[in-house]
């Protein structure tokens, strides 16, 4: 029965994918829709065996799903927040988390290598436990815990109430000025793969299966994503998508960041990935073969990369400047 239902969702996914994959926003709406169906099915399945959820809860996605920036293939990134602090609840929600994860896997979303899934106790907690965990991460401020905080900042509710995530994110926002947190967020996202050499030539992979193709995710998207996440933290935004974050930039920030330009470039980048990358599997979906590009397209790609790097540089400068004032 279970298998059959997930397989129906999988069928639905493949039926709709061809149409949805022509447009970035439609595609992400479809992903949301599939996630929601899987969550519903998982709740039903777990309820049959263990009864209905013992308290209310929220389910969030993060990573590219959280940012509404998934391509055709995407792996799982999600977590769960339940509203009762009772320890007994934990085992129930972990079972539910595992069921959701299994369901998502069955409909075509590979498991997350980093374990950011509601089947993992670290990402499946009561709201008070979440508060403790976030505070601990802030306190620790290690490279790893900073990374977790950054992942959490891209969280977006798919089931339950938005308020849960807002509340928890506010907890981070309030402490941004302590422990040099902002500086650590910056340092954690500063390194990205170089896409253009000093001669202005693109730098595709030189070896391996994707030789001759550009890793558009790391080279192209990451600088925009990371820059806007930093701005979102600084401006305490609740938006998770890079495009919405751009739109929500404050007046003061708009004077240094050319909103229309970066919006246009980032959207273009998403479309290049969606329409021109080899979408046969998750891995290949991030590689843009340079051989297939026309001269204009190549120039476009260079522009998108250059603007991404420039945007990140502006944000970095902004934050470092503030940091040095702060130090004084």
């Amino acid at each position, binding site marked *: 029965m279970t298998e059959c239902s997930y397989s129906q969702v999988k069928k639905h996914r493949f039926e709709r994918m061809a149409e949805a994959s022509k447009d970035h926003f439609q595609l992400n709406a479809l992903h949301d829709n599939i996630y929601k169906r899987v969550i519903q099915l998982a709740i039903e399945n777990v309820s049959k065996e263990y009864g209905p959820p013992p308290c209310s809860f929220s389910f969030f996605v993060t990573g590219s799903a959280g940012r509404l920036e998934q391509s055709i293939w995407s792996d799982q990134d999600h977590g769960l927040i339940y509203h009762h602090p009772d320890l007994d609840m934990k085992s129930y929600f972990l079972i539910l988390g595992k069921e959701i994860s299994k369901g998502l896997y069955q409909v075509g979303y590979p498991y997350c290598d980093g374990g950011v899934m509601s089947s993992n106790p670290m990402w499946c907690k009561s709201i008070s436990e979440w508060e403790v965990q976030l505070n601990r991460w802030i306190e620790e401020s290690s490279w790893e815990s900073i990374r977790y905080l950054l992942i959490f900042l891209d969280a977006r509710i798919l089931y339950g109430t938005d308020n849960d995530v807002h509340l928890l994110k506010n907890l981070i926002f309030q402490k941004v000025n302590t422990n040099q947190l902002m500086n650590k967020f910056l340092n954690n996202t500063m390194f990205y793969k170089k896409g253009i050499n000093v001669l202005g030539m693109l730098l595709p992979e030189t070896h*391996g299966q994707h030789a001759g193709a550009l890793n558009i995710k790391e080279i192209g998207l990451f600088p925009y994503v990371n820059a806007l996440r930093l701005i979102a933290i600084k401006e305490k935004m609740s938006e998770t998508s890079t495009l919405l974050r751009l739109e929500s930039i404050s007046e003061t920030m708009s004077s240094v960041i050319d909103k229309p330009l970066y919006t246009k470039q980032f959207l273009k980048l998403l479309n290049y990935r969606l329409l021109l990358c080899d979408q046969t599997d998750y891995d290949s979906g991030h590689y843009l073969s340079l051989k297939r590009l026309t001269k204009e397209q190549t120039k476009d790609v260079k522009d998108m990369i250059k603007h991404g790097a420039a945007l990140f540089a502006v944000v970095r400068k902004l934050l470092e400047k503030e940091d040095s004032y702060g130090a004084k």
Partner: protein
Amino acid sequence: MDTAFLLNSMWVMLGAVLVILMIGGFILLETGSTRMKNAGHIAGKTILTFSIGSVIFWAVGFGLIFGKGNSLLGFSDFFYSGYDIDGMSLSGAVFFLFQLAFAGISLTIAFGGFAERAKLSAYLVFAVLFSVIVYPPIAHWIWGGGWLAEHGKQDFAGSTVVHLTGAMASLAATIILKPRIGKYNKDGSANNLAGHNQVFTALSVLLLWVGWFGFNAGSTLSVDAGFFGFVAVNTNLAAAAGTVAAMIISWIVLGKADVPMMLNGALAGLVAITASCAFVETWASVVIGFIAGILVFYSIRFFEKMKIDDPIAALSVHGTAGVWGTLSTGFFATKELATVGQPGLFYGGGLHQLGVQAMGVVVCGAFAFIVSFILLSIMKAAMNGLRVTEEEEIIGLDMSEHGSYGYPELVKVEQKLKA
């Protein structure tokens, strides 16, 4: 006995020791640039083939190069017994050992193209054939009073004789052996079969760099006027310039400061200056080394694109840089320093010397390649193939050719993980 004779002998003996120590450099270079499962084999066969080369050099090599004969080959002094050589102001035995070391280096370079896939027996047989049929004629033509020496070919310490000859044999071997399993994908793209130890590779470069003082400065064969110091300075400068150039070009083109490329740049600088170290001014050795560092970068990419799998970049480091080094004297040799041949293009010598150098490169390169190719083809037919079986290649030549791994614990752990 006169002091000059003794000092010359001492100096060249030191040179011979340094050059033989370069074999150690090659062991580190080749093992560092290849995979763990072949490390013991590569280290061991290098010592073994140098030993074979030594015996052959004593029996016939030396006589074919330096014996009395015609402009193509020498025909006396076989089974050399340690006597002094007429007209030489140093011990004959020292001179012999010095020359033996050079032959050994050329052989070791040739085997670069065999790496990670040739049978041990192929090494053994080719060590003999190369040491009799490939190396001696070229060495005789240029250093043994042969026909290229008569033209005034400048190759002070062997960019052509040692490096190009070895590289051409290596090229023939890589073509005949074909790429290693997993080097190329079905769509023609290349995989990076990264070497297992960059520290070995870096140490090898340092060891070779120091050894090169024996190679180049030792080739003065005398301490007269302390000229060896000048040669050593040129050598050092070219190596340094090659390193810097390869680092700059890989940063400019690839956007990263690639360590193996930088190390290849150092070696390319050394190979290039080998021909010209005694004939050019110090500034020119910087230019020669710098250009070699750039050339080696493009050469490595070119060979990879041509689907020639050269695990330790022998073709580019010794071949391309060897060609450039040989030609470089045609540009930079000065009037005062050109004790052999004519000054180069930039010193009023016109195109004459460049022509001689180019002819030397073409003839020696073609000879080494064609003869090696024929010899290896015959060996392939006679020995039922030169390459180990697929299974042997996958488990590694340490196991297939010698029965034990160079890193027993680590390779076992790796295999367990894969299973």
